[in-house]
């Protein structure tokens, strides 16, 4: 492939991604009920975090393992819930798009075109990230307000960096799930189960560091399992930059950045291999309407 062809392919893919994002944003703008539902979901999440923070204290082991004080519990939960909005990006956005496109037959119309499959799959992930970012920002401002760091530019800058890294890592994870959706039809029930487990394991509600305090053997297994996912490091780093050096991370901070990159890359590689399988399956059996 010549440099010129690569340039054309890249700009064409970029255009497909852009048009896909435009499609999804137009869709959501015209589907107002979904917008309201989203807003309600976010408000309920924050409310729940506030109630949790008010009535719960971490047990001594959790406090020792993480260094979080009991009066920071709201920020801990709210941060976890706010960041969890991006798990939709990983699990639901590409999965939903692929399932819908298979169901209505649109996937055939896409697959018969010369467009890049990856570009087509990237667009729902990115549009969902943009939408989630719109909903994340109010929660984020509230969290910063409660934490008293609205004007602390170091905390604002570093936590926003982690949010962006979360989105990037979710792209890899999202691609992986989109491929699974084509390979394993009716994956939705599995995805619902995985979404809940996934958030818990990665430390959205209970710090991964504290698993070991809940159960020695099970906690250790879960802890190692959590380390496969980029999301674990996103939660951990977000909290580190929010709470400062008083918060004990799973690994040294620089190693967490490396692990975040490596685990994201791992899912990109897995997604690539799954794409090959998807292409083969599509050729063997067709992309029939469900």
């Amino acid at each position, binding site marked *: 492939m010549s440099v010129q062809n690569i340039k*054309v392919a890249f700009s*064409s893919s970029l*255009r*497909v991604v*852009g*048009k*896909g994002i*435009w*499609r999804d944003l*137009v*869709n959501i703008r*015209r*589907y107002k009920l979904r917008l309201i539902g989203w807003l309600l979901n976010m408000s309920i999440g924050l409310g729940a975090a506030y109630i949790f923070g008010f009535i719960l204290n971490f047990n001594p082991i959790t406090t020792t393992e993480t260094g979080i004080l009991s009066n920071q519990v709201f920020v801990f939960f709210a941060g976890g819930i706010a960041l969890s909005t991006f798990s939709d990006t990983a699990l639901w956005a590409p999965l939903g798009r692929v399932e819908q496109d298979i169901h*209505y*037959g*649109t996937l*055939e*119309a*896409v*697959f*018969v*075109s*010369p*467009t890049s499959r990856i570009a*087509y799959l990237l667009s729902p992930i990115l549009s969902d990230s943009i939408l989630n970012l719109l909903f994340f920002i109010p929660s984020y401002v509230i969290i910063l307000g409660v934490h008293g760091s609205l004007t602390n530019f170091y905390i604002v800058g570093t936590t926003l960096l982690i949010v962006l890294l979360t989105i990037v890592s979710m792209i890899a994870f999202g691609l992986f799930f989109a491929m699974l959706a084509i390979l394993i039809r009716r994956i939705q029930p599995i995805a619902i189960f995985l979404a809940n487990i996934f958030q818990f394991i990665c430390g959205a509600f209970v710090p991964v560091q504290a698993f070991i305090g809940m159960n020695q053997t099970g906690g250790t297994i879960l802890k190692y399992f959590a380390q496969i996912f980029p999301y674990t490091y996103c939660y951990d780093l977000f909290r580190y930059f929010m709470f400062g050096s008083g918060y004990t991370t799973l690994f040294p901070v620089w190693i967490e950045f490396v692990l975040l990159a490596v685990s994201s890359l791992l899912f990109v590689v897995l997604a690539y291999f799954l794409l090959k399988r998807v292409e083969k399956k*599509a*050729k*063997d*059996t*067709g*992309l029939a*309407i469900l």
Partner: protein
Amino acid sequence: MYALEAKGVKKTYKSRKKETEALKGLNLQVKEGEIFGILGPNGAGKTTFIKICSTLLGKTDGEVKVLGLDVVKEEKEIRKRIGYIGQDSERSTYARLTGKENLEFFAALYNMSKDDFAKQLEEFKKTYDNHEIFDKEVMRLSGGQKQAIVVMRGFLHNPDLVFADEISKGLDPIAAKKIRSFVKDYAKKKGKTIIMTSQIMSEIEELCDRVAIIFEGKVVAVDTPQNLMDDVNIQLLELRLRSTETATPEFLQEIATLDSVKEVKQENGYLRMPVSDSSQAFESVMEICRKYNINPVISYRTATLEDVFLKYCDKKVDLEA
């Protein structure tokens, strides 16, 4: 050059429980600029064949060349130059986007420039008079209007060859006629090759230059619709009796004994009789009718494409016998 060349194409669907042989060595050639029809009963392999040619499915064996390009080795190039209108594709749009927005999205998939898209949209508007389909959200359009958008999507990037799988399936006659006239006008004007399947015989007869009949995964006949119909030697006389008239056994017996009448069948108030010499049969039958004081409505027809279809695809019916 042929727009499509298929030699010995085989396709077997494999699942854990069984293997299904959908195509069993299919051979076909379609010339450039032709509107080519593929007829066949359900499960004959029409859609499988169309999907193989449009790079959506892989073949098990054989050779397929689309616009001179190998369907396996040069699939990316083929995708740039073909259009595809799938079966049941009326729903395959983005419901909350307008017709124009839907086309705009797919134009991006084909890397069309804004100018080219605008020009193509104007072309569509010249050929399809109902312009509201472009500005309304697709979810607010009728089935026929949605299908029009899907058909336009197939022609959007100005492809050299369009595969159309049952484009008017499930549409009312008016909507189907609109789609047909769009395809006919647009394809003829632009000199496009179209390979289409349909279960509607009149559609194939109206649109197609040549027709192939596929039965059990093989092509069993290829020719122009007229030649195929001429080949089925049917001359049929039909009598519809008035409500006050009855076909007595004597009357039926007398008609059946005529030399020019091969057989008399009584179906839904009609008397249908394959004849060998239509004018002689007509005269003789009218004479018997006058004798029994019967004044029926008489019609005469030769073979239709439906008869051709039945000849090749329904082994139980032997129309010529």
